[in-house]
């Protein structure tokens, strides 16, 4: 039988299957010493790139600064304003952000690489997007809303496959009401990958959060089933 500390190494190195990783995470949640061991191992792995710090070639500084200067400064930057991001770049940043939120570990970086590829494959053109990282009950993923083109994309993983009479529904909380975004079934592997139209006219206030519910009733104006994932 593998010892907890060996499992911690395997976990940090991204070697556990999603099921074993989830089991291990539950154990970590109740074992402070093991949690500390995981934290230290992860912090150790995070130090590895420091071994490669290298003085960049002299010409690179001017080139990077020129490329940065060419990025237009938004006319008015407010905290909630949509940002102009190229999809592929957005996806990488979203992936990195997810990894950050979840603790930089190899296991998740590997998962996020997959998310990035899938999001990039779905939506290629530059545009204005807002992104939301969703988590809940071991499931994770990203929803991107393109408010210009009035469409969204969703990649969620680790969900339970539902019986035929049930569906997942994605909602945006806007002010005190919920705006329906889309209805999806998860694949046998527990994945939702889809695009959906975004009814911009329904967004009468900033989006407070996105959340996913499990529903068996016909669709009404508000969710009736339990929330299984939500954005931070």
């Amino acid at each position, binding site marked *: 039988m593998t010892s907890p500390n060996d499992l911690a190494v395997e976990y940090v190195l991204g070697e556990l299957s999603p099921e074993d990783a989830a089991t291990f995470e539950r154990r970590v949640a109740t074992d402070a010493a093991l949690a500390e061991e995981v934290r230290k191992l992860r912090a150790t792995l995070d130090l590895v*790139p420091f071994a490669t*710090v*290298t*003085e*960049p070639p002299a010409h690179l500084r001017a080139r*990077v600064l020129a490329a940065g200067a060419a990025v237009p400064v938004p006319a008015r930057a407010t905290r909630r304003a949509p940002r*102009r991001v190229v999809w592929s770049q957005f996806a990488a940043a979203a992936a990195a*952000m997810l990894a950050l939120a979840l603790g*930089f570990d190899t296991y998740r970086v590997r998962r996020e690489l997959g998310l990035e590829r899938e999001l990039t494959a779905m939506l290629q053109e530059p545009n204005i997007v807002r992104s939301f990282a969703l988590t809940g009950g071991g499931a994770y993923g990203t929803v991107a809303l393109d408010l210009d083109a009035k469409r969204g994309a969703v990649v969620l993983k680790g969900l339970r496959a539902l019986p035929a009479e049930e569906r997942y529904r994605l909602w945006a909380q806007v002010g005190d009401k919920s705006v329906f975004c889309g209805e999806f079934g998860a694949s046998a592997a527990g994945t939702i990958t889809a695009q959906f139209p975004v009814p911009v006219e329904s967004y009468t206030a900033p989006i407070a959060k996105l959340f996913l519910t499990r529903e068996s009733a016909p669709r009404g104006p508000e969710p009736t089933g339990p929330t299984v994932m939500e954005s931070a």
Partner: protein
Amino acid sequence: MGRTEHDPVPAADPPDDVLLRTLGTDRAALGPLYDRYGGLVFGLARAILQSQEEAEDLTQEVFVTLCQGTTFDARRGSLGAFLTTLTRSRAIDRLRSRGRRLRLLRASWQSAPPPDRPAGPADRIATRESSARVRNAMAELPANERRALEMVYYQGLTQAEIAATLDAPLGTVKSWCRRGLLGLRDALGDLVE
């Protein structure tokens, strides 16, 4: 090469979060950020991509991403860690998309190349100190353990893929990875406290 002796480092540069906020409206803030993290991003990109040219391209891409407005949140971790994660994620993706095969890796992969020059004074924050410590600690590891860890980190390979690449038993590779990581943790204990 961000600064020279003619361009001394000011006594107190603004912290990362202030520079990042400024960057949203004034691209001049990119200079100090590049001076802080250019060596970390470029070095990591080059270690993964094994190409000076591609590492330069990726370094530019990462800093341009900062200008485009990221979802970086200082409360969740350091900017260095964010940039490392972003660089690694994109570099490994590039590596895969260019179709490098494990067979080729087996033939060409030795070890992450040592830097041409050690990090210069431009790489400040804790980067400079951490860099020397981590480099020494990696160098102290037995070669197999170091190589296994580098393949995990720089290539994003699983232990099974490493075993196939090196034609070594999986159990042996697992043992290298475990001992290597634990050895690093012991050597760098104070940095991970």
